[in-house]
């Protein structure tokens, strides 16, 4: 069948016109595929956040009520000694936990990166605490730290009768026992993240440094660690999330005690949500927590995305 130029002329725009909606349809498919996730985000995350925000302005008790109570729950919250103490505790805990985890995690990663023997086994050992539920390991930590059962008692029995390690029953020091136990748990995770980062560093850099005669520690401090920026900020965000949701360790180890000395915000919220049947106050507390988190994480994300954009531009 002969094709006339007229046919061609007719067909060409048709084909052209066809191509565009095809592309559009592809985009549509992508949107459809994303829809479930988008709905989850909108309803399950943002929706419940707005719901909590609304509830925090009501005098809800066991059930969510709609009677508006202004900011009275917030006033009550900030007059609540236990809440203020929880905030103070989480700041002390958070700073110590994140810093110590990053330092130990980095040292472990560098150590393993020296091509040590039985690397696989060591990696497993360091990562193992993270794989276990803190409800179980927290109880073990409670026993280890208890002055009548654990370390102190052992020291007494082997002759050091004046040794004292009773932080877990000490009002002023109990928060540090939480740091010790959770650092043990989480530093393996930091190690795994940073080790992956270290392995991603080009061997050429090491070779060049060796030729220039730069000592190893100097290469780590001045070259390698700055290059690990992305891994470290990922680790920071993960650790930060763990700080905010700190709950199981407290429940398993101290139940917030002695007294209220190791109370944390998440435990406060959980208790007022269920046991103490005050949805309004619990919602107000969780909104305050959310705002705090946003205030800290938003700059981190901003700096990170700016750094990435700058690098791409280069």
């Amino acid at each position, binding site marked *: 069948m002969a094709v006339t130029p007229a046919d061609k002329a007719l067909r060409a725009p048709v084909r052209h016109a066809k191509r565009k909606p095809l592309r559009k349809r592809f985009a549509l498919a992508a949107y459809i595929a994303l829809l479930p996730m988008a709905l989850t985000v909108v309803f399950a995350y943002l929706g419940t956040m707005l719901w909590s925000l609304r509830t925090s302005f009501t005098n809800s*008790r*066991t*059930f969510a009520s709609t009677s508006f109570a202004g900011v009275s729950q917030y006033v*009550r919250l900030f007059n*609540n*000694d*236990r809440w203020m103490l929880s905030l103070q505790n989480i700041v002390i805990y958070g700073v110590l936990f994140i810093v110590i985890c990053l330092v130990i995690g980095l040292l472990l990663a560098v150590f393993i990166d020296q091509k040590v023997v039985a690397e696989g086994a060591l990696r497993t050992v360091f990562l193992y605490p993270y794989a276990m539920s803190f409800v179980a390991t927290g109880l073990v930590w*409670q026993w280890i730290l*208890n*002055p*009548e*059962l654990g370390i102190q008692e052992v020291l007494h029995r082997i002759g050091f009768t004046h040794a004292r390690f*009773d932080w*877990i*029953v000490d*009002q002023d020091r109990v928060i540090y026992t939480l740091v010790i136990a959770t650092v043990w748990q989480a530093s393996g995770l930091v190690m795994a993240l940073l080790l992956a980062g270290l392995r991603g560093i080009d061997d050429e850099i090491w070779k060049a440094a060796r030729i220039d005669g730069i000592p190893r520690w100097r290469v780590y401090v001045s070259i390698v660690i700055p290059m690990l920026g992305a891994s470290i900020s990922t680790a920071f965000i993960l650790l930060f999330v763990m700080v905010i949701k700190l709950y199981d360790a407290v429940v398993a*180890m*101290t*139940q*917030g*005690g*002695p*007294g*209220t*000395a190791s109370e944390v915000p998440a435990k406060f919220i959980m*208790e*007022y949500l*269920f*046991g*103490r*049947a*005050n949805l309004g*106050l619990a919602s107000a507390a969780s909104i305050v927590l959310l705002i705090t988190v946003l205030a800290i994480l938003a700059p981190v994300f901003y700096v990170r995305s700016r750094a990435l954009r700058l690098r791409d531009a280069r």
Partner: protein
Amino acid sequence: MNSMKKLVVSVFAVVAASSAAHADPLKATVIHWWTSGGESAAIKQFADAYNKAGGLWVDNAVAGADQARSTALNRIMGGDPPTAAQFNTSKQFHDIIDQGLLNNVDDVAAKENWDATFPPSIIASIKSNGHFYAAPVDIHMPAWFFYSKSAFQKAGIPKEPANYDEFIADLDKLKAAGVIPLALGGQAWQEKITFDAVFADVGGPDLYLKIYRDRDVNAVKSDAFKKVLTQFKRLHNYVDPGSPGRNWNDATALVISGKAGVQIMGDWAKGEFVAAKQSAGKDFGCFPGFGPHSPYLVAGDVFVFPKTDDANAVKAQKLLATVMTSPAAQVAFSAKKGSIPIRSDIDDSSLDMCAKEGIAIMKDKSRQLPNPEMLTPPDINGALQDVITNFWNKNQSVEDAQKAFASGLKS
């Protein structure tokens, strides 16, 4: 393969036949948090009694009281209510009553004459606007004094203390004898129980009710209440350094082994003694307070019946309420649970010494004192618990504790 199929078919046939023969047993889904050994043996008594009465008990145990209660609440709000759900004898379920989400069991209460049979403090908790909204199933006294007979012997204490000063003197003797005088699990709720025991005995029922029931701030500022706090704090000299954070059953274990003298704990602690093969009166002793007129704190558990229009479910709810409160089921349940029955018209010969004493005391209405949870809503109760645990653990002055208590009461 074929024989397998046949087997399956025949099993189905048998199951179908047997359920048909029972002509629709009244199915009851029951949410509760009794999961430990003694507890589940106790709830089984109810299940058996209910099944015998023509029902079909569908057990829905949820570990942890808070979790069980929030499961029940979620199912009620989600439109799939259980037939019955456990709560404490307290104000915990009063919000659900106010929301109109519970069926009342007035028929059963009228038929069984609950008003005359049950203690008034329990009636006050389950009755709202003249309707009965819960079936009480047990009475727990949260502040018994359990003591080790061997430790008392070692310290040369011949008899139970008759007043608070004697009690302190006995603790001194125990300390001198080298045992831990007071086995306390230093968790906020246990410290609160200890405080309430001291409050009821030292402060007396009038002050107790003025503060917990009437929430009278002036009473909190009174010298009488100051004395209560002071006397409570005196006990701090008699606990061991390992106390903070200890679980209640570990504290009981100290008494069982004779390493500690006394524990102030609810009567559920008897389960631990029984599990260690110790018996009341022989290996350990119990007294609910000091002297023959000491107040007896009343706590316990109830089952509520969420709103439903399903006629069969309503029938099942009424049958549950009847069966659970019946004398036979009450005795069988109490023997396993360590609690005392909610009614006194029962045969208590199968119960232990402490339970018998409790039943005898409950007959004297003037000694009954509702526990704080029955008198204050959960969040105020929690705030007061925070105040007490702070006072116990910190170097806080009594005046500051009074101020904190007053503001907790008002919150």
